[in-house]
């Protein structure tokens, strides 16, 4: 079994900030906009180095999306930054008309997604943003798992023409993907070879999926683990090939079970290879205040529950 090492916990948002700072140097068309959360999004380095290309819009997210859309006319590549809730639900119509329907090259970068925003509670936690964004025609949806991958994704989306939703989070999480890891939009990363059950995970839960695979291994169960960093377009081939071996699947995400990765996987399998599936996700509920760890445990978004769901789904195999 392959082992993965946490090379030092870091927040995914800092990976975004580091990637953006690098883009500032390498791509003069990159501009950044922020709605009064520069520090939270770790955009300071870019803002300090390129004040002419950094736009503080204030607490006005709708205007920020519109300005970003307008900036693409003239060849700029705007990266907007605010919390995931205000990056999506608050400005859905602006994204729909001015960005997605207009096919504008805007990168909507969203931090503090999911439950792990923590103590701020349900008003600031969003658990439906993947669904909102993936339903928009032409929108690419990416949810990265650690610091290194978030940095790599930030660099990759600048070279991809079209609207992108890049989702990351607040807390420090295990950093385990290679520092120089390549990032291919739409291409899943196969982390672990296994034969008894497929586990596909996205975002912060990828590390939990690896931990679950370790637990399962100790019980003599072999799990195939896949990191789905791009939810749309979904790497259907990777998922289908895996369940051909294993015959059952668990999906894991820090998102509502409706509208998220699990639903995209279910649709894919229903069409191509109907397979028993279990969902590790929130169960159509809002969040609440608490520490990230407390919330992940209460809502079952952890290795323990992934392993439990894997045991359950194996029993459902024909």
């Amino acid at each position, binding site marked *: 079994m392959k082992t993965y090492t946490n090379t030092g916990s870091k927040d995914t948002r800092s990976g975004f900030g580091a990637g953006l700072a690098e883009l500032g140097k390498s791509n003069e068309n990159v*501009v950044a906009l922020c709605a009064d959360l520069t520090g939270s999004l770790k955009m300071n380095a870019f803002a300090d180095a390129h004040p*002419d*290309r950094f*736009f503080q*819009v*204030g607490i*006005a997210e*709708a*205007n*920020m*999306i*519109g*300005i*970003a*859309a*307008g*900036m*693409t*006319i*003239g*060849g*700029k590549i*705007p990266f907007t930054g605010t919390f995931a809730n205000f990056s999506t639900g608050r400005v859905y*119509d*602006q994204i*729909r*008309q*001015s960005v997605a*329907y*207009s*096919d*504008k090259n805007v990168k909507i970068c969203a931090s503090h997604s999911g439950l792990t925003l923590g103590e701020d509670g349900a008003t600031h936690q969003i658990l439906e943003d993947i669904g909102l964004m993936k339903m928009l025609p032409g929108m690419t949806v990416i949810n990265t798992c650690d610091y290194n991958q978030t940095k790599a994704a930030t660099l990759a989306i600048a070279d991809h023409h079209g609207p992108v939703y890049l989702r990351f989070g607040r807390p420090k999480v295990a950093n385990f993907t290679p520092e120089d890891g390549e990032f291919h939009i739409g291409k899943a990363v196969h982390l672990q070879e296994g034969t008894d059950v497929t586990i596909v995970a996205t975002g912060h839960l990828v590390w939990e999926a690896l931990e679950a695979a370790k637990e399962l291994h100790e019980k003599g169960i072999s799990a195939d683990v896949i990191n789905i960093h791009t939810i749309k377009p979904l790497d259907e081939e990777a998922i289908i090939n895996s369940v051909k071996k294993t015959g059952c699947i668990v999906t894991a995400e820090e998102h509502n079970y409706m509208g998220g990765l699990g639903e995209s996987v279910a649709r894919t399998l229903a069409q191509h290879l109907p397979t028993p599936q279990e969902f590790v996700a929130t169960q159509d509920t809002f969040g609440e205040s608490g520490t990230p760890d407390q919330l992940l445990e209460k809502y079952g978004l952890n290795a323990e529950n992934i392993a439990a769901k894997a045991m359950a789904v194996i029993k459902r195999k024909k």
Partner: protein
Amino acid sequence: MADIQHLKDLVSQVRRDIVRQVHAVNSGHPGGSLGCTEFIVALYNEIMDHDPSFQMDGKNEDLFFLSNGHISPVFYSVLAHAGYFPKEELSTFRKLDSRLQGHPTTHEGLPGVRIASGSLGQGMSVGIGAAHSKKLNGDDKTVFTLHGDGELQEGQNWEAIMYASANHVDNLVATIDVNGQQIDGSTDSVLALGDLRMKFEAFGWEVVTVSKGNDLEAVIAGIKEAISLSRKRKPVCILLHTVMGHGVDFMMGSHEWHGIAPNDEQLADALSQNPETLGDY
């Protein structure tokens, strides 16, 4: 100045195009389109330095964004007459497989359209973004936007209005079509806008009022005055007082013609009031 008679002929022809487009599909928005005809004709034929061969990025061109996208009939007609696409295509307005959607969009690849509009309130933000982009590119051309007065009820405008002055977006000229009408009635009865000049000035804008927004010469003079006030660290606004439905007597001044099409008899009447000058499509 371009030959004023030619511009007047164009205004008459565009008005014919508007009512014919809307009549043909029994759907669309003639009132605001007719009211803004002089403005958009003037912009594209007298004011803007633009290229009908059309590049999406619009570098080194003046740009126009129509925020109140429902007045697409006037926009499409002016673009067609300016050479962006064949006039004959106006006959596909709002029909299946057309590039001329009910509300303008880039999605169908219609030359001349740089962003979708129709969901109201987003155009000023887009104009600001384009204006920023021009400055970053060292491009000294101007960005023009048009908004309905009722559209100012959308809060995003006020975010944009505040932002533009705070950030000295002085290569932007935003025009408000003040016709005092919206779908449900007069703007005063639906949600009164108050004193727009005072509001824009309080937000740090230069304001030009054009009281005769359906007088071609007055409109041209107003836009030129607005341009002369630009590049002075303030965004510029034109309060363009128009009459909804102008040029078709039975449509004038009433919100009733905001979004309904004339019948055959009404079409004939409207056409008789606007002679064919440059050839119907």
